[in-house]
């Protein structure tokens, strides 16, 4: 199985060109652990809610708003370099690939925009609203829709290569590596498909719909379900290796570091489990319902819940808590000593 990290990572290691930094979708993995933010370097008001995560690429922070505006902000000043506006809503976290910014809309389209200029390159109609982050791999984009369709679209032209009807709505962002595509579905199944054709290789049932996105290790698929369980599946066969029960549903996508997988539950706790056995390493209260994915930064794992919280990943000890950033669902971008956060009410913060 190939590692597609390079496809979504620029030469600048501080960049986050896609959801959770790269196509591994394993929790960001910023190199250094940020300290507790002491001040706001800048704050930028978008004028409407932001429900997707920002991206960072070559000193521009890309933010999409629910009122259909995509903005490229200069990370030094927080001022817009360009804006691109649609008469549509955007909940999809964009992805950067080959000089283009890709994102889906509630109106059932995928857009490609020149990342330098903000000019439209192409738009493609798909079967329903797109909230997932388009995954870019091997020259294709992959995105699921509310109509239960998984679409593969040519990243250069926007032409559809294939689409596959699954059993439920798709709000889980796929994991793609080589010819392997893994995705959770509202029908409660985790699917493995070929990325080249959409052929289903295996499907494994959970007890309720899936809102979480999968992370993988070399041989396992890790994903949460609304049935309150967190699952570890065999990557080749889909067989359940273990599952761990939490107090409520799990929408938070997991982060993986070595032998530890970390995720949040709607019961208000952050959980760290042993990847091999599913045994609990630690459990820490987040003070609020957790639906955001955790992000790993050095020795810390950060989560957006009741503010931004950072826990020591090995012990679960709270390292710091910052009150800024009211987003309940957005993943922060951590680059060096700066943390970028999009809040629910449309404020973008650069914290140091």
């Amino acid at each position: 199985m190939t590692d597609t990290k390079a496809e979504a990572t620029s030469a600048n290691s501080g960049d986050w060109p896609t959801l959770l930094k790269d196509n591994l979708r394993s929790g960001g993995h910023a190199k250094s652990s940020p300290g507790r933010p002491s001040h706001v370097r800048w704050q930028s008001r978008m004028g409407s809610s932001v429900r997707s995560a920002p991206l960072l690429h070559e000193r521009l922070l890309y933010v999409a708003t629910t009122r259909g505006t995509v903005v490229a902000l200069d990370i030094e000043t927080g001022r817009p370099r360009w804006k691109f506006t649609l008469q549509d809503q955007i909940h999809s976290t964009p992805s950067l690939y080959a000089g283009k910014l890709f994102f889906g809309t509630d109106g059932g389209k995928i857009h490609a925009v020149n990342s330098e200029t903000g000019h439209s390159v192409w738009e493609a109609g798909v079967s329903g609203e797109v909230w997932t982050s388009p995954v870019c791999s091997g020259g294709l984009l992959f995105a699921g829709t509310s109509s239960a369709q998984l679409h593969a679209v040519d990243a250069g032209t926007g032409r559809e290569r294939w689409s596959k009807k699954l059993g439920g709505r798709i709000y889980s962002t796929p994991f793609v590596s080589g010819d392997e595509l893994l995705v959770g579905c509202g029908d409660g199944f985790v699917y493995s498909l070929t990325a080249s054709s959409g052929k289903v290789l295996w499907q494994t049932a959970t007890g309720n719909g899936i809102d979480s996105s999968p992370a993988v290790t070399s041989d396992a698929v890790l994903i949460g379900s609304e049935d309150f369980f967190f699952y570890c599946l065999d990557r080749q066969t889909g067989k359940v290796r273990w599952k761990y029960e939490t107090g409520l549903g799990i929408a938070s996508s997991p982060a993986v570091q070595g032998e530890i997988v970390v995720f949040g539950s709607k019961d208000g706790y952050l959980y760290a489990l042993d990847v091999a056995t599913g045994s609990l390493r630690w459990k820490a209260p987040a003070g609020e319902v957790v639906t955001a994915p955790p992000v790993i930064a050095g020795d810390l794992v950060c989560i957006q819940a009741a503010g931004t919280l950072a826990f020591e990943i090995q012990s679960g000890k709270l390292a710091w808590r910052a009150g800024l950033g009211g987003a309940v669902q957005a993943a922060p971008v951590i680059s060096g000593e700066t943390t970028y956060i999009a809040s629910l009410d449309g404020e973008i913060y650069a914290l140091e």
Partner: protein
Amino acid sequence: MDRRGFVKSALLGGAGLVLAGHALEVQGDSGAPPLPPIETHGLQQKTSPLGMPGLFPGRVVEVSSKDAIVRNRVSQPLVREMLRRGMQELTGESSSEAAWSKFITPGDVVGLKINPSGAPACCTSPEIVREIVDALQSVGVPSRNIVVYDRYAYEIDIGSYQALVPPEIQVLGIQEAYGGVSGYDTTIYCQASFFGEWETRSYMASVVARHVTKIINLPTMKDHSASGVTGCLKNLGYGSFNNVARSHRAPYSFTDPLIGVMCSVEPLRSKAVLHIMDGMRQVWHGGPLTQNQDFIYPAGILLIGTDPVAMDTVELSTIEAKRRSEGVPSLWEHDPASITSDSMQFYRDPKKNLFYRRPGHIASAGKLGLGVSDPNRIDHHRIT
């Protein structure tokens, strides 16, 4: 104002205290400001026979199953069966399709008004939404003409409804986190100044006013710190108009009579044809937002009816009984010693509350013609 009437509700202003049925000058509540006049601007139309109180005034069907919720998981198959039995009992029809066809035609655009506030601990169960969608499709309503909606998009997100409901139906959060009138029809509103707030109007959601032709109301069964209970009336009224939190400023509340007044505004009144109250989980303290499982009881029931007043009367009685069994004050309690301004204390201590609750909004709604509030006139069928 060519197509709509301007109804200045003098009755609701000057006679509001009488209408509410409970004088404001009760113990501890004497500092409340007087009830102001409430003006309503709705569509001028004759109320549909299907509109509240609908085809079965005073009838409430309660379906219960002890296995419908186990270890906090709602059973999809049992909900399906409970819904089928409850709908047939309500209507007297011998099939589920015939029962649903009394309310819905294939040409309808149907809004499902969920209650995601309190998600994820207590909100409208996606399992119930799925079964209702299935029932609507069984009588010919296409998926594209079904809208699951509520006011707050972020609460819908927390409930993961987007992922959990069937494909192709629309899931709509009318507004983002804060403020604004985008998503609301500014020609249909209720106006009153309760506490000197700067914005005195509450506008009806456009999806209610202009898009859907029928509404199925899906409240949860829980107490409410200001109104006594969240139920059919509050879920519908306060979930269809914006800027409603202004009606209660601790410790005082004008939820009575505003909740009923809002429900009486057309076209909301005519479009709300059926109410299915999710009592899988029952919140007996800390509503509407508590996440404290100590106060959430797995009751495993559904209430079904067309009369929101009768249903809320049953709900109020049920939650009162549960509170009595837990040894905590009545929802009608107005002892100043029971009031706290500390929300953390409120969420921990069921003997404390943030407001002088006003469950009288149910009786007030009855006086507006929305249904039957006299328990002796309610036909309460229990099915187990």
